[in-house]
């Protein structure tokens, strides 16, 4: 699964749930400070990612270390390699 597919899937959550413009969604953006997600949004980001990728995240410590959008892409690149069902789901 290439990174572009993951970027597209992750970005769709930020566009749909948080009404952000696609142009704002660059990897270096800090999710809280620059994209202005607050604590409720972070929970909804996790809910959205769980739905999109079909994998439980809320008890995964890795999601707590995410700071930038690029961190989310990296996490899912890693998870996709470990969980083939993610790749199947995005197809």
């Amino acid at each position, binding site marked *: 699964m290439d990174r572009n597919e993951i970027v597209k899937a992750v970005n769709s959550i930020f566009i749909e749930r*948080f009404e952000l413009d696609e142009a704002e969604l660059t990897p270096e953006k800090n999710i809280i400070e620059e994209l202005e997600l607050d604590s*409720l*949004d972070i929970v*909804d980001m996790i*809910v959205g990612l769980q739905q999109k990728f079909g994998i*439980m995240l*809320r008890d995964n410590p890795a999601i707590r270390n995410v700071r930038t959008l690029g961190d989310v892409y990296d996490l899912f690149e890693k998870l996709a390699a470990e969980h083939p069902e993610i790749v199947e789901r995005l197809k």
Partner: protein
Amino acid sequence: MSKNMEKRRAVVTGIGAVSPLGNSAEGLYRALLENRSGIRAMTEWCEEFGRNIAGAPVVLDPAEVKKISRKVRRTMGNAALFAGLAAQEAVTQSGLEADFFASGRVGCVIGSTVGSASSMTEACVADYEGRRNDLSACHFFRLMSHSSSFNVADMFGITGPQLSTNSACASGLQALGTALELIQLGKVDAVLAGGSDESTPLVASSFQLLYALAEEESPEPDKLSRPFDAGRTGLVCSEGAGILVVEELEHAKRRGAPILFELAGYATNCSGWHVSHSDELQIANCMRAALADAGVDARDVDYVSAHATGTRVGDAAEAAAIRAVLGGDTPVSSLKGHLGHTLGASGSLELAAVAGMMRDGVILPTRNLENVEDCAGIMLPRETQQRELRVCLKNSIAFGGVNATLICRRFD
């Protein structure tokens, strides 16, 4: 009472409405003047009921909804959205400055039957289907009982008291009464107050179960809501919000605000014996207490905006109470023939229309009222009347045995 113990007076300086007859207070009033109905066949509920029962849904403009910031909107169910849009209209009319909301001298009191009936249903379905993890972090905030109140407070940055008068169909009127009392007590100088509610199949079926819903399918659904009429078969479920800016009189005068009418007196009580059976004695007691609170003689009431929803027992009990308190010479009408029953919104939403009636000296009749039998002995106009309205009495009556009465006085 000595001079310095006189009650502070409260006036209305802004009105907002979201209703099945349009999403502005003036639009609602104009539609009522034209005798239009907001009631239609709910084809989208046909699967749940097995036929097209009547209902009166609100239609929102997505562009208007999107004007509410995402971080407030995300925790709003439909009831809170209705309240937010109505509050925006009321605040705009009132001209309250944005920085005043954060002074601690502004309150927010909005009630609903439940925070969001549709959000509650969604949560139950998700739970039943094993999808609890799919629910948004915001979902619980949409269905909490005080959702409309805290969301509207957040919309405007209100930092004073935030309360929610959740007493089913008396919610809106209790909110306005509470606003009046907060101002009288000197706790605040202004309050955004009113009621909001949503209609869903679950809400309608709750009334159906109690034989209180006009549940037949009709080629003329707009004829089904028939308050005080001999042929009434129950209420038609509706939805909306009515939010008013209630403001201390001197404060309103100082800033040159538009003073639309005065909230002169208020009372609320309960029957203390039955959750669903209207109690004419306690309705009458509530009306008398509100008149006493306002210092108004029963003979000086020019018009009664009745609660009357179109149920067999409820309308007859209210008619009997009105007859006992005011006699048979005071004009009485119910706007639920046009609007259906907007539930927790009804008291404040109907008052939004009464404001237009007071301003223009107009009494709107009860739509679909043709034959009075068991509600006889009170004056029920069949046509629109021109008449000076100085004092109006508004009733709300709710499940739980709750009654509320507000006395409104034209401000000259």
